[in-house]
């Protein structure tokens, strides 16, 4: 086992059954990479690459920081902000997701958290307070023409819905460039599997049960390739008059999607695609299964 204290945060590398497990913490989540059968030095190098990429994305796109492009956009007060190429690509992507989901996926909806506190209580926000926020939500109000973005004063964008999945995919691209061995990148349950193990076997991936303590899992997936992401209400909800209001908010109404599953896990080509599809499935509420069947993707739903 190697414990690396030289970086800003610790990482732990262990060898297990012919593969390496490198673990660290980023984006408020436990992160790990599994790498099949490489020399120790290579495993250290790959872990460093993954860790620095995860931190890079976190620093660049987290809305909790005041030194990044998201902060610059969110405090622009109606002024135009010019963004770098990578941010532009993500904004293009966010716009495309908004279009293809008919407005259900919207990176401007994050401000709803100001009135919605999913603490298990019965304190619903007032209709007026939600409606007031709705005038600051909606990608159609954003003036985005690469590389310039302009929000209405009071609007914010939040890439929380895709940031972690994006980090999984960009890390995977970097690891692929640096090793021919197959690997799994798992950032807080959003993951990418690059290919089967050298012995021909699939990787076994445990999927967390968002209803439980987080220790148990609702199942183990045996996968050889693809991206996986899970959306869930994270055991966070409001309960009033027998109605459970899950942590899934419809950006068009500002209200939780009643009837949404506890969690949706989707398998797609990349982690970010799996993430968008699982989020959209949640937003389809009671019709989550129907939506995923129409999309012809593999999924796992826990209700």
């Amino acid at each position, binding site marked *: 086992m190697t414990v690396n204290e030289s*970086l800003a945060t610790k990482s732990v590398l262990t060898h297990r059954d012919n593969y390496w497990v490198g673990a660290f913490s980023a984006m408020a989540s436990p992160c790990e990479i599994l790498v099949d059968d490489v020399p120790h030095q290579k495993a250290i*190098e790959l872990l*460093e*690459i993954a860790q*620095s*990429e995860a931190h890079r994305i976190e620093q660049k796109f987290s809305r909790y920081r005041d030194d990044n*492009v998201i902060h610059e956009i969110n405090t622009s007060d109606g002024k135009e902000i*010019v963004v*770098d*190429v*990578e941010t532009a*690509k*993500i904004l*293009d*992507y966010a716009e*495309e*997701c908004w279009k*293809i*989901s008919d407005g259900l996926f919207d990176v401007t909806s994050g401000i709803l958290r100001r009135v919605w506190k999913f603490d298990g209580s019965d304190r619903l926000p007032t209709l007026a307070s939600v409606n007031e926020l709705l005038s600051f939500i909606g990608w159609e109000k954003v003036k985005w023409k690469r*590389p*310039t973005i302009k929000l209405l004063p009071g609007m914010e964008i939040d890439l929380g819905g895709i940031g972690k999945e*994006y980090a999984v*995919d*960009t*890390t995977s*691209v*970097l690891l*692929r*460039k*640096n*090793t021919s061995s197959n690997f799994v990148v798992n950032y807080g349950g959003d993951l990418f599997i690059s290919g089967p193990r050298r012995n021909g076997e699939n990787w076994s991936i445990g999927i967390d049960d968002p209803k439980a303590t987080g220790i148990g899992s609702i199942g183990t997936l045996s996968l050889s390739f693809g991206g996986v992401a899970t959306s869930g209400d994270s055991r966070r909800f409001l309960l009033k008059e027998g109605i459970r209001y899950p942590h899934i908010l419809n950006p068009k109404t500002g209200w939780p999607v009643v009837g949404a599953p506890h969690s949706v896990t989707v398998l*797609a*080509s*990349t982690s*970010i*695609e799996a993430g*968008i*599809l699982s989020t*959209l499935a949640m937003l389809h509420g009671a019709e989550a299964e129907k939506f995923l069947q*129409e*999309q*012809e*993707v593999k999924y796992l739903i826990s209700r």
Partner: protein
Amino acid sequence: MQLIKNRLRIATCSLLAIAGGAAAADGDTQLDAAMLFYFEDGRTDVFEPVLNLKHDLGNDQSIGVKFVVDAITGSSPNGATPTNHPQTFTSTSGSQGEVRKRVEVFNAGETPVRMFQDNRISVDLNYDRPLTRLLKGEITGHISAEKDYVSRGTTLSFTQDTPDRLTTFSVGGGANFDVVEPTGGKPEPLKNSDSTNHFGNANKDEYDGMIGITRILSRRWLMQLNFSRSRDKGYLTEPYKIVSILDQTGSQIYYRMENRPDNRTHQNVLLSSAYEFTDDVIHFSYRYYWDDWGIRSNTVEMKYRYELSEASYLEPQFRYYKQTAATFFVSGIIDGTTLPQFASSDYRLGNLQTTTYALKYGFQLEDLDGDFNIRAEYMRQGDDPHPGNAIGVQKNYDLFPAVNVFIITAGYSVNF
């Protein structure tokens, strides 16, 4: 209605193509091809095709090869200064036993030049690879050959990024081993050009060292500072250049072969900076050069890349260069005075000013991969036509006729 899944797939491919700052979707071989045409009014034409291939070996290693061919025809000042009577030069040319004598006459006041024709071919190889996650190494090899000159060289350099990758330190060194093979052998230094003996070839070695720092100051601003020092040893004289020997009135009588010191130490400091606006990029650089021959030079350069659209740009460029003369630069030597140890009238060692204006247009074509560019450059080189060291009748003539150079470059680069 197309499935959301499929539209998402297309959007994701485009998103992840730049993941990690690297063009994962591009091919791993890059080809740069260029064609350069150089016209110097009344003097030299150069035609130069360049082919540069770089192949990504994976794991951040790459290997590159560059071929350059120069076809040079024309003339360059032979060192003799204009005088008050016609000047006649006889040169031999031709090969394979057939020797042609050529007589050139230059009128009073004209700057004598020497005709030449040469082809040069050069090949450069380079290989770079990461040594640790933040340390990179690069090794290069170079060979070039022309009729009377062969050059071989190698460099080794390292770049070290800081963990935040905002600062890069670089250090490198190189050595070059050249052989000068003047037609007929090298002349005796400062001998009368009509009676000098010629014997053999000569060597010229160069050793270089470089240190640099590159710093990303903000998301848009990059600064670079480099220092390099080189030492040249061996035959640094131009074997065909002469110096006019004058009478007391400054009128030319005969010529002597030039002679330069057999070593030279030169240094360069380069400060450059790039700033990215919304789309456009401005580059600025300043270079100071000094050597122990007494030459000092300052260069300022500015470039502005103006994005016309997503697929085209315009880049105007301006450069100004000014140098002071080497201590042994003369416009002639008065007959009968003690010969200096070193003397040259090569205008490239004199006071010199060069102003360059260039405009580059880059574009992409819809049905063809790759980037195209075309660049036009106008360069004016000259200095005071009546320098202070002019002697007697020389003062009546333009000792430094301005030279106008036009360079057209057409380039194409593509990944495959």
